[in-house]
């Protein structure tokens, strides 16, 4: 079948070319930019010098040294990973019972229950953040109620807005469906006869869960965790709007380097570290998932 071999490339050529130009190339350009000097007015300085007709490369390791020599950025990375781990774990604890409930309910209600999880996920990202800005606002009912209760115990008023707690709640809120969907896809496939058999043999409810359902669902747990962990790690809008000064994550610094301080080479360094981390997490996850 000779005709087929070129026709398959005919199909894949246009999308491949597009993605090479607008996805692969920019990533490589950014890797290159991380070795360049910042431009005088922001952006990038030329990567070569022209002197008496001679062209010499003008690249540097300074940007990478800056990352490694001060511990601010390393600490910021660790803090961001901490937030991402926390959000992933909370999503798991909240999402697992929900996914299990949907997977175990009747055929008809299943589709509706699942749709109800997906719908908020399709509403605008900023609207979902904004909703929490209203809830946590100092004049909002929640803050006033909480302070009313705290007042009874003689504890001073607290503010919820612009705190790491507010940020974490919103991070979980935005990413919860990413955890529920793969978990559901996995739990739905389980053979319920296994649970019946275990019950007949005298295993209690929790024993059945930990010995059968949980181990079988691990690949779903891993998939969901990756889908939550990676976007949270690169988040900048939620810390920006809800986190206050304590809630800065690596995404905020990347945004700052590109938009405000306009130190693109250093922004590129941070972006490359984020890229490598994300790729490593995906590879690790798929390795772990395959072993199941």
């Amino acid at each position, binding site marked *: 079948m000779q005709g087929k071999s070129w026709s*398959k490339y005919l*199909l*894949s050529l*246009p*999308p*491949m070319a*597009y*993605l090479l130009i*607008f*996805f*692969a*190339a*920019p*990533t490589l*350009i950014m890797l290159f*930019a991380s070795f360049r000097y910042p431009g005088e007015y922001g*952006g990038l300085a030329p990567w070569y010098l022209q002197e008496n007709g001679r062209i010499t490369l003008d690249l540097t390791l300074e940007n990478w040294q800056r990352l490694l020599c001060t511990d601010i950025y390393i600490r910021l990375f660790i803090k961001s990973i901490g937030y991402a781990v926390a959000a992933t774990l909370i999503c798991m604890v909240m999402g697992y019972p*929900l996914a*299990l*409930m949907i997977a*175990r309910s009747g055929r008809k209600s299943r589709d509706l229950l*699942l*749709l*109800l999880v*997906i*719908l*908020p996920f*399709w*509403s*605008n990202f*900023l*609207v*979902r953040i*904004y909703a929490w*800005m*209203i*809830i946590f*606002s100092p*004049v*909002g009912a929640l803050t006033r109620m909480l302070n009313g209760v705290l007042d009874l115990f003689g504890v001073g008023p607290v503010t919820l807005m612009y705190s790491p707690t507010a940020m974490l709640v919103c991070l979980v809120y935005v990413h*919860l469906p990413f955890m529920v*969907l793969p978990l559901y*896809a996995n739990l739905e496939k389980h053979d*319920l006869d296994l649970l019946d058999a275990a019950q007949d043999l005298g295993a209690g*409810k929790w024993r059945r869960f930990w010995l059968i359902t949980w181990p079988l669902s691990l690949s779903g747990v891993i998939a969901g965790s990756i889908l939550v962990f*990676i*976007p949270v790690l*690169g*988040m900048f*809008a939620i810390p920006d*709007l809800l986190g206050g000064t304590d809630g800065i994550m690596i*995404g905020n610094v*990347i*945004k700052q380097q*590109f938009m405000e301080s306009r130190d693109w080479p250093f922004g590129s360094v941070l*972006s490359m570290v*984020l*890229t490598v981390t*994300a790729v490593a997490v*995906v590879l690790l996850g798929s390795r772990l998932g395959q072993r199941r």
Partner: protein
Amino acid sequence: MQRKNVLLWISAALVYLFLYLPLVIVVVFSFNDSRLNAEWVGFTWKWYGKLFHNQEMLTAAMNSLIIAGVSAAVATVLGTLAGLAMEQSRQRLLQMLVLAPIAMPEILMGVSLLVLFIMVNMTLGLLSIMLAHITFCIGFVALAVQARISSMDPGLVEAARDLGASPWRCFREITLPLLMPGILAGALMAFTLSIDDFVITFFTAGVGSSTLPLQIYSMVKIAVTPEVNAVSTLLMLLTLVVITVASRLSPAVFRGE
């Protein structure tokens, strides 16, 4: 045997409450006759009225619709080709190029495209936003199309080939009509993803090319006002309609990949 577990149901109900309460609050306060999003004062339409007299908002809405329309159209063509190619043969490079943009944090695509556009001296505006949106929409369309192909009966195409139809005729009269729901669902998904995108737009937009999410962002940064609630409610309504249609067309696509 149905397993009913009270504890499970209660915790699931609480999670649903957690998912919906914030959105309900946004919608309810968009009709509230008070500048503060704090207490219910009375019913009003005035925030919606204000919205339709806000020139910046209208321009942003127009930009959003143009960008989403064009991006969805181009991404649908490219994504369908990618989906077909991925199903026909395992091409590792294509697969990686299609899936990687979905898997990476959005900010990375935003900043790297910004660097690319500036490098080639492109003025940031509607065009740069569209080029960026197409990039992240291709993968979603490809997945929707692929999900549809894998649910198709390959025997149909084989039968047509046996009866003497040319490959092109086979594609036009059998594959394409059968794929249509998947393609349309992918297109609608691309449209919503584009109209909702904030992060990548944030980095690739220029002066005077504000979109609805960017407009909401700049308003929210300054203060929380009921006008934001009103525009949010309308945006939610639009997404709801589009996604309901899309999920009717191709339920499998929305059951989590």
